């Protein structure tokens, strides 16, 4: 079997780590080239025109994986309200029509996630023994947590660094080092070292960054290609970014703690209650709640990311302006028509507004 996966932020590093630990037993992991304009073009060309951006991007990735000879494709599947549940049905047909002989293996991301992931790993590694599967899984998780921990520091440092771009440079090195780490201990050590280096980056003593929360649909929030590296652009403008969502958080709660009855979104859902009483699928409920929570916490603004025509986020978008807790929200819709300069102009104007607002309030 030659196994292909779609890209989603740095999720591929986790899969790579799994493959590295398990060896695969004759199976080969094919990681398609990083999402590029070509990926998007392929996705757009073969997708239904009104499909959402994550559908098009992941389709592009899978086609590129097929070009490299993948015959088994992994994709997420959910029994929820959003379109995700239909991805596999749609993409399977498109890939078959293109003449590739590939079949899909799905990963249930809404129910029985842990069991589903474990069995998937076991099957794809040609029935590796359970202890090996579990230790590989935790090794991969370790990398995921390390990367997200690094992200948090980077979000803070970008806004205050003296020499612009220094943080990004270290961050790139760190990602490379973590992806190359061979053992749990090495991952921990590398992470610690890089976090130390990052926190020693010279800071601008006069910096007083505005604080912005990023929320919205989880795929576009976590995929830098889909959102045009908005975190980095905000960082360049001297904005401290806070993002609640992350892959490691999803894994930690979705795979383990939710089963113990712990809901990581409890506070956010409660905050959303007066305005949106129920789960509308996807991340719509969370978006409304995050606005309320961050307004209460004194954030300067919120950037709300959603794929164009995303149903749950449209519900959130309609409701958000009416909340009593008021902070400026910039909604950015991501699709194949989006261009970087357009996004940057809007973000710049938004940040100016936030700075002005803060100055006026300070007086």
């Amino acid at each position: 079997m030659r196994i292909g996966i779609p890209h989603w932020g740095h999720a591929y590093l986790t899969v790579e780590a799994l493959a590295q630990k398990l060896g695969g037993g004759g199976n080969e992991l094919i990681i398609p080239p990083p999402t590029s304009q070509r990926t998007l073009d392929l996705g757009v060309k073969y997708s239904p025109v009104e499909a959402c951006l994550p559908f098009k991007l992941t389709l592009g990735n899978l086609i590129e994986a097929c070009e490299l000879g993948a015959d088994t494709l992994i994709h997420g599947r959910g029994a929820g309200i959003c379109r995700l549940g239909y991805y596999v049905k749609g993409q399977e047909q498109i890939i078959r029509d293109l003449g590739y002989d590939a079949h899909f293996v799905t990963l249930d991301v809404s129910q029985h996630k842990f069991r589903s992931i474990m069995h998937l790993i076991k099957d794809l590694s040609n029935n590796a023994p359970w202890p090996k599967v579990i230790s590989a899984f935790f090794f991969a998780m370790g990398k995921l947590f390390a990367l997200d921990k690094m992200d948090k520091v980077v979000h803070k440092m970008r806004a205050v660094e003296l020499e612009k771009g220094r943080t990004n440079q270290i961050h790139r090195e760190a990602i490379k080092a973590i992806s190359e780490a061979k053992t749990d201990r090495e991952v921990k050590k590398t992470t610690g070292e890089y976090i130390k280096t990052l926190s020693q980056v010279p800071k601008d003593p006069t910096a007083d960054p505005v604080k912005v929360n990023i929320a919205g649909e989880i795929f576009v929030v976590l995929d830098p290609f889909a959102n045009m590296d908005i975190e980095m652009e905000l960082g360049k403008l001297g904005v401290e970014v806070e993002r609640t969502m992350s892959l490691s958080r999803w894994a930690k709660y979705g795979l383990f703690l939710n089963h113990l009855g712990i809901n990581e979104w409890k506070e956010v859902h409660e905050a959303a209650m007066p305005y949106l009483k129920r789960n509308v699928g996807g991340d719509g409920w969370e978006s409304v709640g995050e606005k309320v929570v961050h307004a209460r916490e004194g954030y300067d603004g919120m950037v709300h990311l959603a794929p164009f025509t995303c149903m749950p986020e449209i519900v959130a978008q309609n409701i958000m302006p009416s909340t009593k807790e008021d902070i400026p929200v910039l909604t950015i819709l991501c699709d194949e028509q989006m261009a970087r300069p357009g996004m940057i102009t809007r973000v710049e104007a938004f940040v100016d507004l936030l700075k002005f607002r803060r100055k006026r309030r300070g007086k």
Partner: protein
Amino acid sequence: MIKVGIPRALLYYQYYPGWKTFFEAMGVEAVVSPPTNKAIFTKGNSRAVAETCLPVKLFFGHVIFLADKCDYMFIPVMRSLGGKAYHCSKFVGLPDMTKALVPECPPILDPEIDLTEGRHRLRHIIHTLGRHFSSDKGKIETAAEEAEKAHLAFRKDMSDRGITPVQALDELCQSEKESDLGLDAATILSIAVIGHPYVVYDDYVNHRFISRLQDMGAKVLTPEMAAQEDLDFAMKKLVGNPHWSFEADIIGAGEHYLGAEVDGIITVAVFGCGPDSMMIDMVRHRARECKIPFLHISLDEHTSDGGLVTRLEAFLDMVKRRKRVCA
């Protein structure tokens, strides 16, 4: 008498007879907004975020129309009708969006229908709804039973007689309007029109799509004109278990009519419809495999009907010629 407002939009076309029966049995008057007109269209459009799909914007327009004409607004939350199939997010968020966008709206009745939680839970929800009007449990129970009967009879009536919901509803409301949708012997082409009832039957949105087709000499077949079991069967055959509650009405209907060898198939959807963006592609794919002419019409806020008419004419011309050549 207490008045409950029912917007003539979205689920109205599928469930109105049941709702009306329930409210009347409870001794409540059901007030329905008029068919979509320019004022409703403009008002609804002005409130919602631009990206919202047209039928939902219209829904707000209808709510605004009814706001000062009733004591309660009835906006049920359709989450799931069983299995692992769900309605679109916007149906679930409707009451909350209405509250945010139409602050003048009277108190909202928002029973949450989720059949995955079992019939017992449904009964509880209906009782909670009924208690707004009466504390008599027996009365609520009877009203609910009658409503269910009315709904099933309405659905069966449409498929038995091959009529559209609008015709069936007109008869139900004893409207004098003479419908001209009857089966004319002179019609030569059978065209299946696939789409959500709130798009296919809202004449303002679709620019009198169906009557235009009929004027051009086509016999129009819509999903409601087939029995629900046939639609379910056709859908199961093609895609297995549904992901959306209305999958049988789109994919199932497409497959059913393709199997019945119609002369052409037209899908109608609004721009930005999430579920349709995926489902219509399936129908298109199947139509190509069956070698049956296929046309997709995407509707939005544009009010000009010129483009639509041209496309319909061209499509029918093509279907006619094809039929002549193949015959």
